[in-house]
């Protein structure tokens, strides 16, 4: 069979979408990923590579292996349920953009050289930025511009690293590089930005909640997971990733607890989940890499499900703040049930998908003796149940009755959520299906008594803590507010710093000017005192004396000369 790179199918699909309208367009956006997915499953693409020669450089644009195939499969799944969920999105440009975005994500994971990776990286940045701004509000437009700026910085760092790497090694192959040298460091930071490393994370929490209900579903699936894949390929076993990952699992959950916008809560929780993956990649053993990959696979599905359920709520009610919602289980019982499946999966309840992958990373941390890291991950596991598992469904569908009465989510949305929920339970109940796809052979079993009991205990008592905190009134109520995060630096801080800096510079300049003027005046006064009209040098007597002395010395010279003759 002729190898047809997945991204080509998606890009052709995107061009086609521009000429279609209505239901044909909606079906087209589902058909394209289905066809591409079938081709990928039915052929054995690991056999041969598709290469292309550009300006004397050999680009390997399509060469899947076991690692990239896991991501490739789940990106297809996400494109399919995203396509179904956005059935009602009728704008052909938006549809085409989602196909370009999914296609470039697939291109990025299946290519094997740094230049192609850079091209797909930037294509993802532009197409996803369109999805951020397509809701049309000024706020989204501003967030989108900031998002695009940060994504482009990431791309440029990747390009700089790739060029440096090429000049040093003469190769552009994207393979394991480890954290050695400037080139690798630049590429590492480029991946880190897309992966939402701590302090580089704010583009995610700022931009994703501003998109449309459909747009966020796509956004949550691709960008960060491509970065996770890139880290797994280039930097597996880099120890600093363990600590970065552990910080990523812990700090966002505090923000998630006090955040009011429920999609932003999910964005923070996404950083928390990526933290588990980054940590696994840092540990770098076969079990850990398998765990990170499996968790990325599951995260795309359960985070997609949660984003879809919140998208459905936003679509029906027009509201997304925890303080405005509540009691929706009466109006949207099916959405509520599907949301709870997603919540159970992200919380890693036994029989749901999160459990079978997260426990692999945690077991790997224990096996390799990272005890403090394990404690941090355990804390984050309890925390994720608290802020994503309980908070999301509770404040949207239960809590106080907000009085909002709407229709149940549209059928297309329910079908998309249903597929994702089915996969969450299916993978959770039959983890071997997922394990057989992983990069390394594994005989890991998540379902032993120790694991299951420990997980149930930690979850039930986290829930007990929630019940106690809620009933005693300690639990912070949802409030209309924003919480300051790193974005403050570039949204407020830099401006304040600029103003302060400008003031300081202005003061220094004016002070320096005064000082210089004074100095110059004093110098001129000094010169005038010596050479001015009334000075000794300019007095008549001195001139006479000078003439006399010249005449005398001349006479002395003449006499002396005469004597010598």
């Amino acid at each position: 069979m002729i190898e047809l790179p997945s991204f080509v199918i998606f890009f052709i699909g995107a061009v086609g979408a521009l000429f279609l309208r209505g239901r044909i367009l909606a079906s087209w956006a589902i058909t394209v990923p289905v066809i591409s997915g079938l081709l990928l499953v039915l052929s054995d693409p690991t056999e041969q590579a598709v290469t292309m020669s550009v300006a004397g450089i050999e680009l390997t644009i399509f060469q899947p292996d076991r690692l990239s195939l896991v991501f490739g499969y789940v990106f297809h799944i996400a494109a399919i349920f995203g396509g179904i969920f956005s059935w009602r999105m009728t704008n052909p440009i938006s549809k085409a953009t989602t196909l370009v975005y999914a296609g470039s994500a697939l291109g990025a994971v299946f290519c094997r050289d740094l230049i192609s990776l850079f091209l797909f990286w930037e294509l993802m940045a532009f197409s996803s930025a369109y999805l951020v701004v397509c809701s049309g509000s000024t706020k989204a437009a501003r967030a989108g511009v900031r998002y695009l700026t940060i994504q482009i910085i990431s791309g440029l760092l990747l390009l700089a690293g790739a060029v440096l790497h090429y000049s040093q090694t003469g190769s552009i192959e994207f393979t394991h590089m480890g954290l050695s040298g400037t080139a690798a460091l630049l590429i590492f930071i480029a991946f880190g930005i897309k992966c939402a490393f701590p302090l580089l994370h704010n583009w995610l929490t700022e931009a994703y909640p501003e998109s449309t209900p459909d747009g966020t579903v796509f956004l949550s699936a691709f960008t960060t997971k491509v970065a996770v894949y890139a880290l797994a390929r280039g930097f597996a076993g880099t120890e600093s990733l363990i600590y970065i990952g552990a910080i990523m699992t812990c700090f966002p959950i505090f923000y998630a607890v006090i955040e009011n916008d429920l999609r932003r809560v999910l964005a923070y929780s996404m950083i928390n989940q990526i933290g588990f993956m980054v940590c696994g990649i840092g540990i770098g053993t076969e079990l850990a890499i398998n765990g990170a990959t499996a968790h990325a696979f599951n995260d795309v599905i359960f985070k997609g499900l949660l984003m879809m359920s919140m998208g459905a709520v936003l679509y029906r009610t027009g509201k997304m703040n925890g303080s405005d919602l509540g009691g929706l289980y009466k109006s949207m019982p099916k959405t509520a049930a599907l949301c709870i499946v997603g919540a159970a999966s992200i919380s890693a309840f036994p029989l749901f998908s999160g459990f079978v992958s997260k426990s692999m990373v945690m077991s790997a941390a224990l096996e390799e003796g990272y005890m403090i890291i394990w404690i941090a991950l355990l804390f984050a596991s309890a925390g994720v149940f608290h802020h994503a598992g309980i908070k999301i469904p509770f404040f949207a569908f239960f809590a106080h009755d907000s009085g909002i009465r709407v229709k149940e989510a549209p059928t297309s949305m329910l079908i998309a959520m249903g597929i994702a929920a089915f996969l969450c339970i299916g993978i959770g109940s039959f983890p071997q299906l997922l394990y057989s796809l992983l990069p390394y052979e594994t005989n890991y079993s998540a379902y032993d008594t120790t694991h299951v009991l420990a997980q149930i205990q930690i979850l039930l008592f986290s829930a007990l803590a929630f019940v106690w905190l809620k009933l005693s009134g300690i639990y912070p109520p949802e409030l209309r507010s924003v919480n300051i995060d790193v974005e403050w630096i570039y949204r407020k801080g830099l401006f304040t710093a600029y103003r302060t800096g400008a003031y300081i510079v202005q003061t220094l300049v004016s002070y320096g000017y005064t000082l210089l003027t004074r100095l110059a005046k004093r110098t001129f006064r000094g010169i005038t005192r010596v050479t001015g009209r009334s000075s000794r040098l300019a007095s008549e007597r001195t001139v006479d004396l000078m003439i006399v002395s010249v005449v005398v010395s001349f006479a002395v010279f003449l006499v002396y000369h005469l004597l010598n003759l």
Partner: protein
Amino acid sequence: MANFKQKDNDTQLPRAVGLRRILRWFYAACALVLILDIVIHRHVMHPWENLLFFYCVFGFVACVILVVVAKWMRKPLMRSEEYYDND
């Protein structure tokens, strides 16, 4: 901070779904896993796992710390929704 205050009636969990009955089952489940902790022998890898009720206590304490710290974080971090509007 006055503008953050709003009528907080969401401590009232939905009565319609029979909160008390649900909570009673929930407490029973908690008690059951506490008992199982003593009954079931587990093979442990971390020394702390040997402590009695380790996971139960950890889960509870971790969440209380999480919420209390997060609530405290609101003081320095929380701003009105319009905070960034003129940026």
